[in-house]
């Protein structure tokens, strides 16, 4: 048996590197295939079918793109929810990013009780997932609905052009909720702020740069890479938030008589497409901005 040919004693460095690479990632790939990728393709198949679940099996009836056209063309709620979601996400992302960056800049300074503040601003991480946020939204405490009934605010809102009205109203009522989503982002910004070498600040100060100039010329370009990471993270977290209206709707339709699994799967894919479009837009805007900054 010439087994050496298959298992040579010395393999090339590159092959060994690749082998170790696959070794480290193997477990994850198996789990990912089984519980993410295969279900995902199955869902896509469902979305092209009328799915009927009986006690013993699942019956598929191929309907091509009918589920998709139904969601996009005939469903009275879905498109509206989808547009609402897109607007809310596009409004929230810049706010989360700017808020996180400002807080991170503050927390990067030296002052007494700094570490206590760091902990407090990281705290929302235990709020936005889990029972707390469910309880809060159930009781209407996460938003401030009272704001949109104050006469001055109503006056202000009616004067806005139509297209701007709902984003601004969303902003006013859910401002606190948006801020709660920035725990991890603050942390990521803080981590990369701490990687900036202090001697750069000193050199800039020697050359006569004001702290305003230091922020625009040194800090902001250094943060442009993680800003993209933060933007992606924010969009994903906002889109998977369990109280998200589109998700609730898809969930309700899954077990609804008129909806069904096939229809819900199609909506999930459309939702996924919209989310991807938002993500790509934000990504392209930020990379262009990052390139201009580093020039």
């Amino acid at each position, binding site marked *: 048996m010439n087994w050496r040919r298959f298992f040579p004693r010395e393999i090339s460095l590159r092959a060994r590197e690749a082998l170790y690479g696959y070794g480290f990632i193997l477990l994850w790939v198996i789990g990912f295939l089984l519980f993410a990728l295969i*279900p995902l393709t199955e869902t896509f198949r469902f979305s092209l079918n009328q799915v009927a679940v009986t006690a013993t099996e699942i019956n598929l009836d191929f309907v091509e793109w009918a589920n998709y056209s139904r969601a996009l063309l005939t469903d009275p709620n879905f498109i509206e929810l989808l547009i609402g979601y897109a607007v809310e996400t596009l409004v929230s992302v810049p706010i989360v990013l700017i808020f996180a960056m400002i807080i991170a800049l503050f927390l990067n300074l030296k002052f007494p009780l700094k570490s206590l503040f760091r902990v*407090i601003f990281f705290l929302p*991480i*235990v709020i936005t*997932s*889990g029972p707390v*946020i469910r*309880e809060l939204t159930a009781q*209407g405490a996460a938003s401030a609905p009272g704001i949109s009934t104050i006469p001055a605010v109503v006056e202000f809102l009616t004067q806005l052009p139509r297209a701007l009205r709902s984003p601004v109203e969303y902003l006013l009522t859910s401002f606190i909720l948006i801020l709660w989503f920035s725990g991890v982002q603050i942390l990521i910004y803080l981590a990369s702020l701490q990687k900036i070498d202090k001697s750069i600040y000193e050199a800039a100060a020697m050359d006569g740069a004001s702290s305003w100039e230091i922020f625009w010329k040194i800090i902001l370009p250094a943060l442009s890479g993680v800003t993209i990471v933060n933007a992606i993270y924010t969009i994903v977290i906002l889109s998977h938030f369990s109280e998200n209206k589109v998700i609730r709707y898809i969930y309700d339709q899954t077990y609804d008589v008129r909806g069904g699994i096939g229809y819900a799967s199609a909506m999930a894919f459309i939702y996924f497409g919209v989310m991807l479009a938002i993500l790509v837009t934000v990504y392209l805007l930020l990379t262009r901005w990052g390139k201009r900054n580093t020039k």
Partner: protein
Amino acid sequence: MATRWYQPYIGVKNRGINPEGFHVSQIKFYIVLIPLAGLMLLPIIYIFSSAFKPPEELFAYPPPLIVTNPTMKNFNDLFSILSTSGIPVSRYLFNSILITLVTVAASIIISSAAAYALSKKQFRLKQTLFVVNNVALMFVPIAVTIPRFLIVENLNLLDTFWVHVLPVLAMPVGLFLLKQFIDGIPDEVIEAAQIDGASDLHIYWRIILPMIQPALATIAILTFQAAWNNADTSTTYINNESLRTLAFYLTTLTSTTATGADAVAGQGVAAAAALIMFVPNLIIFIFLQSQVMSTMSRSGLK
């Protein structure tokens, strides 16, 4: 130089950027940070005070933030239901603790190993795998519930302990964040270790993991919450009552009473149960936050 809360004499050291102690010019930081910190603390205060609210305060609109007449009634109601349950509550509690521990440990090891490979190793499928992960990151979990159920069924995992753990392990968000952090580690560190004769496992265990500790602690907090609060698995995959979790038990408790005649008591019980479910999250957070905060400055070459 020891940092003091207040220094009567503000010397040269305290002028300029980064004064050591308190300086009058720092008051502006507090003016900005204290109100915002208050906003961040609101939900915690709310969840604690909710649990002690008597019914009339629970249903007041707008909901009062602080309880005015604290009562233990909600907890008494909750415990009286618990004591009449068929299966001892300690069973659910034990399941939850075990599942959470195994999930957190396993998912951290698997995601960080995968992130290390994706970030620092060279192999052909690397880019593809990362793209695929990012796509999966964007997919709504509820949409895959039914196909996932079929797979779990085919693997004969229904009604087993492992069904609680395995589907949660491949956490795309975790991998995404960890890879970004490992990308930030300079290659020189790894090369230096290789020259000193460190094996790949050694590099992973002794260099990568300690350097991404803040990210690991963050992922640990996130996974802990996902596992601890997970009631869906018990609903979907488990028929055996003694394999279900505390999160599941508490949701059934509150949802059945809320639809019944005593919906008012249900709200109170729900608030008390939410607090009980939340406290472990807070404890883990307090326990791990020092890991997140303290080691952040160490990652990098000098």
